[in-house]
């Protein structure tokens, strides 16, 4: 057996996979949440739609995104296999009484992870699949070159090549952007209270998964050190456990509340 297969088939090596892929996915969340903040801009979705085009066409990002899908699968499959192995390690007889001295999240990473996997499937279907393969309408934005004010309308003109066309109109002194309207998809999706509830469930699972997972990844890497532990704990709890899930959860809630007013 080569040392690579030996390492990654040992329990420690398989935890190393969980740790490294988990940290990669955590970093991705920072990128994802910062990009999605454009949903809150009052530019009728212009910034968000242009960002969606950039993220799906810029080659380096495309490469990373395929890596991301692979790591999600690797993390999920390795995690579920480990959970099955761990369950088996207890033996055929379970305890009659158990008083746990560990946190709830740490004991339920596989269940939280399964909720998240389900969430990712629904989320990818709602947006990624729709954007790539579904019938997403185009929207035409006109941004004044002088003042920057944006007006928009549904685009009914001739078919567009690709996801976006952008040009400057000399007569009106505006920049015209005709772009696939993912913003409208988002708005429509989050008018559905059931979907909003499901997204909140997903972010609840994300919060608990990361409160334990982020810190745990460093312990698995062997990075347990009195100098860095307070920082790792702080970032794990406040940034990944609370900040990011709350920011994500705010998005469906924001659109749902807006849909009530409209």
């Amino acid at each position, binding site marked *: 057996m080569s040392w690579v297969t030996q390492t990654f088939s040992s329990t420690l090596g398989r935890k190393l996979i969980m740790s490294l892929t988990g940290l990669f996915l955590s970093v991705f969340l920072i990128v994802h949440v910062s990009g999605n903040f454009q949903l809150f801009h009052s530019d009728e979705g212009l910034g968000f739609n242009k960002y969606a085009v950039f993220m799906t066409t810029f080659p380096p990002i495309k490469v990373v995104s395929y890596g991301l899908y692979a790591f999600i699968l690797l993390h999920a499959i390795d995690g579920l296999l*480990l959970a099955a192995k761990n369950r088996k390690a207890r033996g055929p007889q*379970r305890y009659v009484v158990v008083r746990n*001295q560990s*946190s709830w999240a740490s*004991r339920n990473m596989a269940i939280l992870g399964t909720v998240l996997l389900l969430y990712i499937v629904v989320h990818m279907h709602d947006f990624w699949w729709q954007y790539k393969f579904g019938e997403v309408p185009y929207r035409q934005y006109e941004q004044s070159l002088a003042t920057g004010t944006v007006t928009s309308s549904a685009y009914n003109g001739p078919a567009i090549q690709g996801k976006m066309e952008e040009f400057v109109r000399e007569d009106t002194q505006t920049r015209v952007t005709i772009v696939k309207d993912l913003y409208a998809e988002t708005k429509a999706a989050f008018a559905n209270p059931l979907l909003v509830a499901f997204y909140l469930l997903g972010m609840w699972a994300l919060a608990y998964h990361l409160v334990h997972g982020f810190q745990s990844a460093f312990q*698995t*890497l*062997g990075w347990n050190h009195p100098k860095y532990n307070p920082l790792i704990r702080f970032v794990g709890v406040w940034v990944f456990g609370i900040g990011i899930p709350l920011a994500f959860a705010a998005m469906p809630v924001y659109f749902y509340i807006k849909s009530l007013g409209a």
Partner: protein
Amino acid sequence: MEGNMNLTLQVWRQKNSRTEGRMESYKLSGISEDMSFLEMFDVLNEQLIVEGKEPVAFDHDCREGICGACSMYINGRPHGPLQGVTTCQLHMRSFKDGDTIVVEPWRAQAFPVIKDLVTDRGSFDRIISAGGFISVNTGNAQDANSIPVPKENADASFMAAACIGCGACVAACKNASAMLFTSAKISQLALLPQGQAESAARAKKMIAQMDEEGFGACTNTGACAAECPKGISMENIARMNREYFAAEMGTKE
């Protein structure tokens, strides 16, 4: 030693490794709060012998908290409700008159039940045999200054060496993982110069053996360290991971 505690014990009874076991209930009276938990079991066994029944088999040896033989899972926790004590050092004053106490053996694939509360912890011995030693005779004590050891390392090594191999970490872990035990045994040697020479080979062999025995992986729940009667820290697991990854990546084979 007469007392006035009345207790109900629910104890796992299993004839041998090939038969199914079950919980049995026993009433005990006149238990003194000054008895140790094992002495309470001695009283139960005398009572069972008088009644012509099979006494409860349980592991015990030194009864002073240093041998690691006693191993009871009491009311859902290894070694019972107290922190930092083994079952033999747990006293009945930790319980109340009229309590029902549930006593089970360690539960792990790698610790099969031999009889009642006795499990076969030979898997721990095999992990040690795989590499948890220094393979040269130490000879006479050298001059203390010839091998400098920083005080912090000596302390950390000694803290890891406090592990008595009782298996409470495995019993407490939801994954029945032996990482705390194995990491303590790797750390106590890795932290000292005498252990350095073989540290890479040791990490690889002991972890291979640990996996072969069927222990689970580590989810870093911290239940092991919380229940360890000797206060072994999870820093040892991090050190073991570093030792192992460095060994796999850094050695020639």
